[in-house]
């Protein structure tokens, strides 16, 4: 199969680009596999990739209801960062960050990971103190973090209104320079190709409709393309976690599905070369390589499985954008869309064995799953292959809620609307 290289680009260009092979096969499902992964998003695909690469388990099927990458991996705002407060989160996301730093080489696929930095703006001295605390917690665990003054911020982002007349004056910021953005589609495609060439079957348009059971044990799935048996069934379906788990007879989960909207403007000349977040609301923005400003804010705030949101959040996000960047008032929004997020009860994910024998669960990503894609797959593959969690995901159990071991980075309690 063709590797991508400057030479292959040139050779194919000379031949009129007619000889490129599809990046992955379109196999029919076999009757059984060692491992079935439900969900062909970023996390499912990276899980398959690391199962094959790190653990030699290649008799694997990834079942995707729609087409590959049609869910949140192609809907997020592409930010990658590891600026968390609590050690469990910091260690996990920093592991992910280190994987991002080598991902294009690892996959031989340009995921356009750009470490352009992520700056959290502080608008009150108390918030600045809070960021200093978080920055110290990050540095304590070996993650880069630095505090910035308004003058430094103005040099970094000239368009930002840091005057004392701003609606919420900027008093400083917390910068993670190694944070940045990546091209989200390429992440899905790169992992898909990598998994496929190691023998993983990626089966699109294959909806799981139920689970095959032997007593309590999960022994396979029924799908829109027939029954498929497997020794191990892994679930990585993000916003659809509730629906899929109900098919397995697990009626309640510490998860609510909420819709998060994202927006992109018409293309502009270079305007901002970092990821910036607003501290007096919930707003984040970066600029894509095409020039569009990519931005978003809060989830809509009520349970939803619809991949579209309502207007009040559109209004709120736009007003927060203009509070920071009054100069953007005349810029037109080009597109907006929604994705269904699996909001957990403490804002942290779940990567674990169970809850049924033969089943493995990966969910609870809230609206921050994209940056976790490499480490999520890596840890989930470890957990599936060895039947025990890696140290990185050991804290992210399903039973932590009932055992009082929640990992609540923001301290918001069991209220997904606020995470």
């Amino acid at each position, binding site marked *: 199969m063709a590797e991508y290289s400057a030479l292959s680009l040139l050779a194919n260009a000379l031949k009129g680009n007619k000889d490129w092979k599809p990046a992955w096969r379109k196999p029919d499902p076999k009757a059984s596999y060692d491992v079935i992964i439900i969900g062909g998003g970023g996390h499912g695909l990276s899980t398959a990739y690391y199962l094959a690469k790190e653990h030699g388990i290649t008799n694997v099927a990834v079942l995707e209801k729609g087409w590959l990458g049609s869910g949140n991996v192609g809907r997020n705002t592409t930010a990658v960062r590891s600026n968390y407060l609590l050690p469990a989160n910091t260690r996990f996301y920093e592991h992910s960050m280190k994987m991002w730093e080598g991902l294009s080489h690892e996959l031989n696929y340009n995921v356009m990971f750009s470490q352009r930095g992520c700056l959290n703006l502080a608008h009150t001295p108390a918030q600045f103190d809070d960021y200093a605390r978080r920055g110290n917690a990050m540095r304590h665990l070996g993650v880069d973090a630095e505090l910035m003054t308004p003058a430094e911020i103005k040099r970094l982002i000239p368009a930002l209104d840091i005057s004392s007349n701003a609606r919420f004056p900027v008093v400083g910021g917390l910068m993670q320079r190694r944070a940045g953005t990546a091209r989200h589609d390429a992440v899905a495609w790169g992992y898909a190709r990598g998994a496929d060439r190691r023998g993983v079957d990626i089966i699109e348009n294959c909806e799981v409709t139920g689970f095959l059971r032997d007593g309590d044990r999960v022994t396979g799935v029924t799908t829109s393309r027939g029954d498929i048996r497997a020794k191990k069934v892994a679930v990585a379906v993000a916003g*659809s976690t*509730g*629906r899929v788990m*109900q098919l397995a007879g697990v*009626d*309640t*989960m*510490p*998860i*609510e*599905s909420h819709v998060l909207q994202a927006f992109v403007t018409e293309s502009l000349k270079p305007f901002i070369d970092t990821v910036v977040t607003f501290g007096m609301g919930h707003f984040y923005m970066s600029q894509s390589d095409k020039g569009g400003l990519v931005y978003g804010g809060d989830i809509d*705030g*009520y*349970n*939803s*499985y*619809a991949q579209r949101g*309502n207007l*009040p959040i559109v209004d709120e996000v736009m007003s927060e954008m203009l509070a920071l960047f009054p100069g953007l008032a005349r810029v037109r929004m080009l597109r907006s869309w929604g994705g269904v997020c699996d909001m957990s*009860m403490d804002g942290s994910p779940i990567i674990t064995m169970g809850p049924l024998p033969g089943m493995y669960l990966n969910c609870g990503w809230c609206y921050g799953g994209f940056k976790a894609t490499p480490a999520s797959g890596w840890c989930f593959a470890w957990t599936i292959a060895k039947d025990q969690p890696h140290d990185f995901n050991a804290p992210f159990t399903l039973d932590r*809620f*009932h055992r009082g071991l929640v990992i609540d980075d923001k301290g918001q309690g*069991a*209220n997904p*609307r606020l995470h």
Partner: protein
Amino acid sequence: MLITCPYCGPRDVIEFTYQGDGNRERPEPASQNFEAWNAYVYDRLNPAGDHNEIWQHSGGCRSHLRVVRNTLTHEISSVAFARGDHGPRRKMEGKS
């Protein structure tokens, strides 16, 4: 999205605050059944389809409402006072 408040009539969703899943059963305050408390605090049905939920008309009459809303279409099929089982909350005597 419009929610038809029984007091105020159809109002924009922006006037309302989502109070979450209305299916949960709060144990008696003195209960020491930890499993029941854990289930109340953390476990959700999270259905794709009709969902019983509590909203407060915080930008209006401040009533707590029991709303049945479809999580796939956002269509609202019923709105009632959250204490509807006992009729609307009675006026407190001595207060206007």
